[in-house]
């Protein structure tokens, strides 16, 4: 019987380890292109730094 272990990310995510540098850049660029689909959803949001959202006009920080 296989012992259980704690899982944090999927096997698919962790596949990057086996890629050559050229393959990694190719997969990375393709992922970035596909991820543009959510641009409208996070237009006013921040993923880094000390700001969380752009201010809503006239109402200060959203």
């Amino acid at each position, binding site marked *: 019987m296989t012992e259980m272990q704690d899982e944090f*990310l999927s096997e698919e995510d962790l596949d*990057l380890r086996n890629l050559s540098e050229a393959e990694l850049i190719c997969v*990375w660029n393709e992922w970035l292109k596909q991820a543009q689909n959510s641009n409208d959803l996070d237009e006013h949001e921040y*993923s*880094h*730094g*000390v*700001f969380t959202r752009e201010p809503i006009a006239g109402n200060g920080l959203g």
Partner: protein
Amino acid sequence: MNKNIYLNLTDEFNSGRLRAILSGGQAVVLHRLALMSKDGDWILREDEECVGHILSTLETYGAVYRFGAPLDIRWLSGGWSAHFEFRREDIRVRTDFVTRPPRLSSDRLACLWREQEHRAPPFLDIADLIETKKTNREKDYAVIGELARLTGSIEDKLKYSRSARELLDLAGRYPGSIAEITKQRPALAASVDGLEALETALDSERRRLIHANEDRLSRYLWAAEAWGQAWSETSHTIKGKSLTMAHRYMVERAQGLLPTTVPGGLP
């Protein structure tokens, strides 16, 4: 040239001297862990030449300011972040900058600049990346869990692992180390009470870290209230201007509206 926008930018930011260390989600990619962020995040050297070079590089890409602090060391040294955006082919490229990343001490930062001096590309190592990932977002703790598995030393695994099973295994094999690391990471004390107790302690630790980051961010949000109120007018004024001109206006406007320091803001 590389053929990835974030690697290309990192090269250009560091042309002639080390100025910018890639962090955040793109550093996670370079650790071969996961693709999970669309945006680029860099730690900059806190000097005038550096911010001048970053601004002129961004200008060549047609970048514009997003809401944020001016890219000026008076604000950056107070822990503020500056944010830009431009389009490259089909990609919306966002570039985010700090000089005082959260949870990295000034001593650690000084070491970091020495360690990264000849690295190409420069990007945060695992322990520092883990510290910056202790945010208020649940998904970052999954990344920390995997990053901790990549650490080489037993001490770092004990400091950063989010797996109760793996920590219990290490506790059994390295009792001296766990006693020492428990002084820095109190959650490990629960390892003597078994799996469920340690899982509960790790959950509680995660929630405490999330709340601590929320508290830190709320101080900046409060301090940015007046700047936020003025943003609609500010962004209208800088629209269509070169980044150099927009930057001058941002600095002029931020004086008096955005305090350079925020009590309790820095780590």
